[in-house]
């Protein structure tokens, strides 16, 4: 895949080609009639980063993207590229390009003409070398003379990418670009997109509802819900330290159990959960005290037969009963019914170190204090749950 990419870029991945301006959205709002699609959104996308806007359909992520592209006028707020206010700039005057969800390739033009479109509109005469270089970059060097509709979905996707990248925009916007591809191709394209982004060093803003896609590709993920950003940060941080129940449920899965804070220590929070004291680190506590949700990710939980003793520093809740076992090859997913009637999920790697538990087995659940997070009980414990299956 090195053909067509000049040596310098390879030697220095992540180099910034453009002036390297940050994209800044300031108090951006968009209303469609009475419906608020985007509500007072403020965020900064650093130059050269791969930024993902993640959220369920209808959360306002595509509207945000279209406002950056200039295809939608904000009701209020401003958009800056570096110091330049582009809020009122017509789309064709913005140094921003979009890879559309349905690719929107021009059916009356060949693949090469599609890719050359942007350069030609800006008055460039000699475009062939550049077009060939970009088609090589997306591994379609031999398809230039075809019509887009003769290509497969994945190939069309790459043409759309080349057509946008050739303009070396300050920001490349990707609107669910992999949504129409099947799972295997999508995974492959995720790696490809990430590679290209590293190679060309442009700012990518990627809109998706697929949490795995967002986490695999992006440096920074912003989880959006109902027009506002719930939480923003590196994927690992969002996953391990969710600030809201929506993030806890939308990004992966979580076990959320009701409890109330009994003591605040220097670096730990003590929470009473159904008569058992559970410890959580202060850095992962997003509640001031009182009633809370105590959360832990299913793969962070260890299962042991009832009555076994544990090391200090590990939270243990006892007397669960396994009510469902799903073997998925890599791991086994257990549903454990707790004495207070709630069912908790536990994922265990199939390392072969011990036998699987059977349905009906009595178990204790243990996990480390630093894997515990504490959320405000005022939130809906099921927020974000129903969307989870959309992504896969």
């Amino acid at each position, binding site marked *: 895949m090195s053909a067509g990419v000049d040596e310098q870029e390879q030697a220095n991945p992540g180099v910034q080609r453009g002036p390297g301006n940050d994209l800044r959205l300031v108090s951006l709002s968009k209303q469609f009639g009475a419906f608020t699609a985007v509500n007072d959104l403020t965020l900064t996308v650093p130059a050269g980063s791969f930024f993902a806007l993640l959220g369920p359909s209808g959360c306002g992520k595509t509207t945000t993207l279209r406002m950056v592209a200039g295809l939608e006028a904000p009701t209020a707020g401003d958009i800056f590229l570096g110091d330049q206010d582009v809020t009122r700039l017509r*789309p064709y005057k913005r140094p921003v390009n979009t890879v559309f969800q349905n690719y929107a390739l021009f059916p009356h033009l060949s693949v090469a003409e599609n890719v050359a479109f942007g350069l030609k509109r800006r008055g460039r005469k000699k475009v062939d070398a550049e077009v060939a270089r970009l088609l090589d970059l997306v591994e379609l060097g031999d398809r230039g003379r075809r019509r887009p509709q003769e290509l497969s979905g994945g190939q069309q996707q790459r043409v759309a990418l080349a057509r946008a990248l050739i303009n070396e925009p300050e920001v490349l916007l990707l609107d669910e670009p992999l949504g129409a591809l099947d799972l295997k191709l999508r995974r492959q394209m995720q790696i490809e997109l990430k590679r290209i982004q590293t190679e060309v060093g442009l700012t990518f803003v990627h809109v998706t509802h697929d949490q795995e896609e967002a986490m695999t590709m992006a440096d920074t993920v912003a989880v959006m819900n109902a027009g506002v950003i719930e939480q923003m940060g590196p994927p690992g941080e969002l996953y391990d330290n969710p600030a809201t129940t929506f993030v806890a449920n939308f990004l992966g899965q979580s076990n959320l159990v009701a409890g109330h804070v009994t003591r605040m220590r220097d670096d730990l929070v003590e929470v009473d959960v159904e008569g058992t004291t559970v410890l959580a680190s202060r850095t992962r506590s997003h509640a001031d005290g009182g009633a809370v949700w105590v959360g832990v990710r299913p793969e962070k939980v260890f299962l042991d037969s009832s009555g076994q003793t544990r090391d200090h520093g590990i939270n243990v809740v006892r007397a669960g009963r396994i009510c469902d076992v799903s073997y998925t090859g890599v791991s086994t997913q257990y549903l454990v019914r707790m004495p207070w009637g709630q069912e908790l999920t536990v994922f265990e790697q199939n390392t072969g170190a011990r036998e699987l538990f059977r349905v009906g087995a009595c178990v204790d659940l243990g996990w480390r204090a630093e894997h515990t997070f504490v959320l405000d009980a005022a939130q809906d414990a099921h927020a974000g749950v129903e969307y989870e299956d959309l992504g896969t």
Partner: protein
Amino acid sequence: MTAPALFPGGGGADDQQQPPPPRRSRTGYLLLLPGTLWLLLFFMVPLVTLVSTSLYDPAGTLETGYQLTFAFGNYVDAIDDYATEFTRSLLYGGLATLFALLLGYPLAYAIAFRAGRWKYVMLLLVIAPFFTSFLIRTLSWKMLLADQGVIVEVLRFLHILGDDGRLLATAPAVVLGLTYNFLPFMVLPLYASLDKIDVRLIEAAGDLYASPPQAFRRVTLPLSMPGVVAGTLLTFIPAAGDYINVELLGTPQQTMIGNRIQSLFGAGSYPAAAALSVTLMLLILAMVMLYIRRAGTDELL
């Protein structure tokens, strides 16, 4: 009433769906039968009759009868005698088509992209004139363009027309009548192909640095070409062969080939009339083929 029902031709692009898998049964042939019979009865038979009539002995009359003598001279005479009318027909037809395109494109564009919920009302308005007969509508134009009519009075007042200037019985009146009468044939196929354009393609053009005029020229116009071709053909072919508009809005100075054919048939000169008809048909066919080849929309044929 939906849009495709208004104009079943629909620009012809929908017909390119994948062909159904071949099935070895007689059902297909049975389904073809009505169409084949129709074509035989109403196309092949008249065509053969017309061509053979054009080759009859020109000396024949209704009283003495006609004889098939393969008189190819009929064609030479027809073209010799009526070259002016042929030229005029093509000119008037061409002008009417051009004006219909210039009027019809913005209208079809507005209906397809800007009309919102008024779309179907506007489409209905486009075809509403068809509820009245072609003749009556053309006769109304005769009244409108009359020397004492409001239009002429206003134009005289504005000195666009001279004090004794007139509209009725002039070439512009004939071209106007043709344009008016065939405008819906232009608008409907144009609408059908504009309506099919994915707006996101136009958005994409804007995103790729095309100003609105450039986006129109590079994306919208090329994608609407099937409609342009279908519309111009549907307008030009009947307009070039028309004789009613000259009859009602023109004078013998504006005589088109259609009038000659009609009067020759009326006078019993069947061979000459048939030879003119066939020549007109071939002429138009040749032009259409050339046009479609140039426009690059072979799918229409």
